[in-house]
């Protein structure tokens, strides 16, 4: 149970992902924000109107995956670090995840790191494809990792060192 453990259920997670068809068309955002809290910068960050306008600041974000092109502008603007981008067209066996990562040292491109699930458990090894740390990201770097497709719903973090 998310409310007592902090780990969303499989059902919650799958609902946040784009549908199969959309997943196979390319990058799209996955928003794991399941609680009504006074917050809306994800909506203000998106300039494709993929995230619906909030009627009330406590609304849950509603994303239209058809409008979303996976640009990732919203990732570093979410104070809950609840947004990532998934791209199943990356390669035959791997999908690409773009996750926010606020720890040092940052990994470097080409590193093989541990792919962790939503409870921090090591699921599989993943390859770091890109590390973005621009001024726009304002100290919330975005790490792109190549994840074996069978683990695409599981991996949500990376682990380095011990």
């Amino acid at each position, binding site marked *: 149970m*998310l*409310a*007592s*453990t*902090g*780990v*969303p259920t499989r059902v919650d997670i799958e609902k946040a992902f784009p549908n199969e068809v959309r997943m196979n068309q390319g990058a799209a955002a996955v928003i*794991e*924000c*399941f*609680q*009504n*809290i*006074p*917050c*809306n*910068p994800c909506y*203000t*960050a998106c300039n494709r109107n993929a995230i619906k306008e909030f009627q*009330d*600041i*406590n609304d849950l974000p509603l994303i239209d995956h058809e409008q979303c092109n996976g640009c990732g502008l919203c990732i570093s*603007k*979410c*104070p*809950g*670090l*609840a947004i990532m981008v998934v791209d199943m067209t990356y390669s035959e066996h791997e999908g690409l995840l773009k996750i926010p990562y*606020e*720890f*040092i040292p940052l990994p470097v491109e080409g590193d093989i790191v541990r792919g*962790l*699930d*939503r*409870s*921090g*458990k090591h699921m599989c090894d993943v390859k770091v494809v890109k590390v973005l740390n621009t001024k726009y990201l*304002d*100290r*919330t770097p975005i790490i792109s990792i190549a994840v074996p497709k069978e683990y695409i719903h599981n991996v*949500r*973090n990376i*682990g380095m060192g011990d």
Partner: protein
Amino acid sequence: MKYTDVLIIGGGPAGLCAAISAAEAGCKVLLVDRNRSLGGQLVKQTHMFFGSEKQYASVRGIDISKILLNQIHDKENIEILNDTTILGIYEDGVITAESSGIYMKIKVKSTIVATGASEKTLAFPNNDLPGVYGAGAVQTLMNEHGIKPGKNVLMVGAGNIGLIVSYQLLQAGVKVAAIIDAAPNIGGYLVHASKVRRSGVPIYTRHTVKQAYGKDELKGATIHKLDENWNPIEGTEMDLDIDVMCIAVGLSPLCELLWQAGCEMKYMNELGGYVPLRNERMETSIPGIFVAGDVGGVEEASSAMVEGYLAGINAAQSIGHTVCNIEEKKKDLHDQLHALRSGPVGTKIREGITQLQTVLEAAASSSL
């Protein structure tokens, strides 16, 4: 004796915004804080804040404080006195203070109390061992002074403070053994909880500290599980090998000055303890004394800022100053507060505050 129109006690988000809006209305403002640097809680908040654009959502607390301070420094009618503690508020508008070791008096037309809140403690055997700290204290140590508190931490309390300080401990390279909370559910925002969870930190709800142990310093702690009636369940003890324990079981309003001034107070569990009665204008039962921020009920920096702007405008208006479109401005601020508190998380706060206003209004009409 020093003279000013509006005295603001406390330079956190509430006090900074109160100073800005009172100064915009043309008042001479004196902004006082007992710390060397202004910003209150903001100066150690390295994470991004929630809220909407108007309350600087997505901006880190430390940066919000810089934005507000720049606005303060641009205003010639705001004087800042740091390293100054306000000691007492008296009926004749005289306020006493200790400023860098010197006793002084200030004569004011109106006062805004924005002193924030202090951390609550928790009773358990050996809670006085070195190594047992308030979570906020550890945050100050780490983020303001760059000192790691230890190697392995038990966080007691899964509210926003417990969750955020755990995250910042991880960022500093300190291990967090677990976060525990006596309540059945996580009290803080679940997005924060998920953030620490996916770094491998377990969260045990319905758990509390049985005891801490160690001779000269903290060496470990035993935690145990609670049943539905909050009684410990025998046989559920777990030993944790930790050298730091952070207590994050809530804040209570720092309202000694309001008591001393004679403001009417009421105990409100949902607002963190005793809080002052006040009206919509943020004025307490004593005319000329206004409040803003956590001192009036423990909440968030976002609402503290909006309350600060409101208290500043109203304090200015009460002594004959005004700004253009004053009623529109106030309405916008009330709407912002309402929106911030309109969700399920804000329900308790909204109800508590409505009660405080109703009591004060009833008292006012019965004295007619």
